[in-house]
């Protein structure tokens, strides 16, 4: 059967699978050291670029996997949900999110790993994150104009630039390789 396999994601079996996916995700983040705020903030002071390295190697591997599985007919891309694009809210939200990330030293996912490995600061980030989402959700009406501005749908880079999917894949791989070389150089300089 062509992937993705799950049709209904709220059945008991689906939720068990969700939990297992989470276990793998959490364990990988912990192994990478991303449950440690002190290690994570090294990214922003040029001492330890683990965030960049882990994130971009993950994106490259998953991107190549999706590309080849779709080409081989194993994965039906039309049934894989590309997160939608809203230009202004995602640019503004990204800037704000990044500032919060530098303060917290952890992102929402890694805060759960930090808390799970016994770190009180991880728990504080989780609670703050919850308060922020709850507060923003409660005050959503006043944010709605910005939230819904500049929608572009599930737009992808190849569709936007009008170039073949494979060309963008090659470009991202090349960009990542250059990025890794620069990251190694920045770390050695310190």
């Amino acid at each position: 059967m062509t992937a993705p396999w799950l049709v209904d994601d709220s059945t008991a079996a689906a939720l068990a699978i969700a939990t297992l996916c989470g276990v793998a995700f959490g364990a990988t983040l912990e192994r990478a050291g991303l449950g440690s705020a002190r290690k994570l903030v090294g990214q922003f002071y040029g001492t330890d670029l683990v965030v960049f390295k882990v994130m971009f190697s993950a994106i490259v591997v998953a991107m190549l996997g999706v590309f080849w599985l779709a080409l081989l007919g194993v994965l039906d891309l039309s049934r894989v949900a590309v997160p939608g694009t809203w230009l202004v809210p995602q640019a503004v939200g990204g800037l704000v999110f990044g500032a919060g990330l530098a303060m917290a030293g952890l992102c929402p996912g890694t805060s759960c790993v930090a808390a799970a490995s016994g770190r009180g600061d991880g728990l504080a980030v989780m609670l703050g994150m919850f308060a922020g989402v709850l507060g923003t959700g409660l005050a959503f009406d006043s944010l709605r104009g910005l939230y819904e501005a500049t929608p572009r749908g599930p737009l992808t880079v190849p569709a936007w630039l009008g170039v073949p999917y494979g060309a963008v894949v090659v470009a991202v791989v090349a960009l990542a390789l250059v990025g890794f070389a620069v990251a190694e150089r920045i770390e050695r300089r310190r």
Partner: protein
Amino acid sequence: MPRRPYADPYVAGACLGLVLLAVFVISGRGLGASGAFAATAAGLDHAIAPAHAQASPYFARYLDGGGPWRDWLLFEIGGVVLGGALSAWLAGRLHREIERGAHASAHARIAVAFAGGAVMGFGAVLARGCTSGLALTGGALLGVGAWLFVIAAFAGAYLAATLLRRMWR
């Protein structure tokens, strides 16, 4: 148990990429984190004031389908906590501590961590995702909004980090 060093970042990153790929193949959706916080917030609002949650343009979406307590991402995040704890325990890294810079008090660190979490919460609602659900998932699928978010988040983080240097030194 001795505390073992962390994995090589490229190896860990490649493993994370394979986990993400497996999730695409299994479920057709990627990984996520902020959505679990949003589902919990929606569930809490619904438990306290059902009519308010139903009428909320943000929370109402989490009340569809199986409801907020049967949300895929909520179970996935439960798994993240389990997997993180298991991995830390196996590596001898399960310790009670508050990670902070040499010159920051534990209270200051907790306060800034909470505030940082709240700021991220606002940003993630506005951007419709976080590092997991938007940057990683959307990045691998070459979504324009995801890449825009990645660039903006790195910019925001580097800008804020220059002001926060004293926290970590």
